[in-house]
């Protein structure tokens, strides 16, 4: 015979189950059909990128210090390469990107190290940014000559031709982690999303005169209240 407490626990569990089921939309058969493939990684997958020709797919993974990057052939889902560098947290890859010309592949890890790899050989890598805080965003310029990288601590442009690194901005308080960065389609500016603002930077001005506030084209600060 069930005690009152047992009944209450069962009732609570049943209620919780019903609430969970109701709150959680079920996939229709239509959406099950939408899933083409599941490609396995050794750890939690944090980012994905297609090569510009669509033939390769890359993933960055890592959470339980089993991190790395994996490349597949899109056509047959065969693994082309598995890239691992370092041990522990530094092996965990947060962001991946292909250059638009298809020649380079970049990874960014938990420590804020950005590494460049040659597509095809995958055999060697070059560290171009080191230890700049937990990686948030990584992208190549449209002409494949620069990398924009943002992390918890800084927003950085790396010039692949000169090897110069330009720090656009650094963290000044707890809130302004550099969550995302993107090049404009013409490659002349980058847009940067800090925790509560969008900022646009003119690349040429920023690179020639780092720290020059004129390089900041605009800043949009999000309101904390919902407007209608």
């Amino acid at each position, binding site marked *: 015979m069930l005690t009152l407490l047992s009944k209450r626990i069962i009732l609570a569990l049943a209620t919780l189950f019903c609430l969970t089921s109701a709150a959680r939309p079920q996939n229709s058969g239509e959406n099950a059909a939408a899933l083409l493939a*599941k490609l396995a990684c050794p750890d939690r997958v944090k980012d994905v990128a297609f090569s510009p020709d669509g033939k390769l797919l890359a993933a960055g993974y890592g959470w339980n210090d089993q991190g790395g990057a994996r490349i597949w052939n899109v056509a047959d889902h065969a693994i082309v390469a598995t890239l691992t560098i370092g041990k522990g947290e530094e092996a965990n890859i947060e962001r991946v990107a292909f250059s638009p010309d298809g020649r380079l592949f970049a990874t960014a890890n938990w420590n804020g190290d950005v590494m460049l790899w040659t597509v095809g050989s995958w055999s060697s890598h070059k560290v171009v940014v080191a230890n700049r805080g937990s990686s948030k965003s990584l992208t190549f310029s449209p002409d494949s000559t620069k990398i924009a990288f943002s992390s918890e601590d800084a927003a950085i442009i790396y010039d692949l031709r000169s090897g110069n690194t330009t720090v656009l901005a650094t963290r000044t308080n707890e809130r302004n982690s550099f969550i995302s960065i993107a090049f404009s389609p013409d490659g002349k500016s980058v847009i940067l999303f800090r925790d509560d603002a969008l900022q646009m930077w003119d690349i040429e001005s920023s690179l020639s005169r780092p720290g020059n506030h004129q390089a900041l084209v605009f800043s*949009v600060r999000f309101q904390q209240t919902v407007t209608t």
Partner: protein
Amino acid sequence: VIAGGGAVYGRKSVEIWNVRDQKKLGDLSEFRSGLFALAISHSEKLFAVGGGNYGSGGDLSVWSLAESRQIGFVSFGEFPIDGLAFSPDDNVLAAASDDGFVLLYAVDRIRGPQVKKQDFACAVRF
């Protein structure tokens, strides 16, 4: 020029901005769970947002960029979606799952309930 815009903790929205004149084009609100990824298709017709909650699954929704209208929603596994990418021909959407998979979806087959489950955007894309 279009930027898919992010919002902040507590704001529960995705914002779409025209960068050229700095005007907001769309504001999608009332999202309910975390959002960790955003991608705009190469055709600039669609965008996708991914996220979810730890323990209750990864959520992925696809939207019409011009109309800010949700086209489809997919939920997968136990953990959130952390990254998204459209294939160059926009036929396939790849999603990075904390369950340890890359999920490949046929974009034109993603339909389903009109549910907004994500919370805050944390990405900008042109």
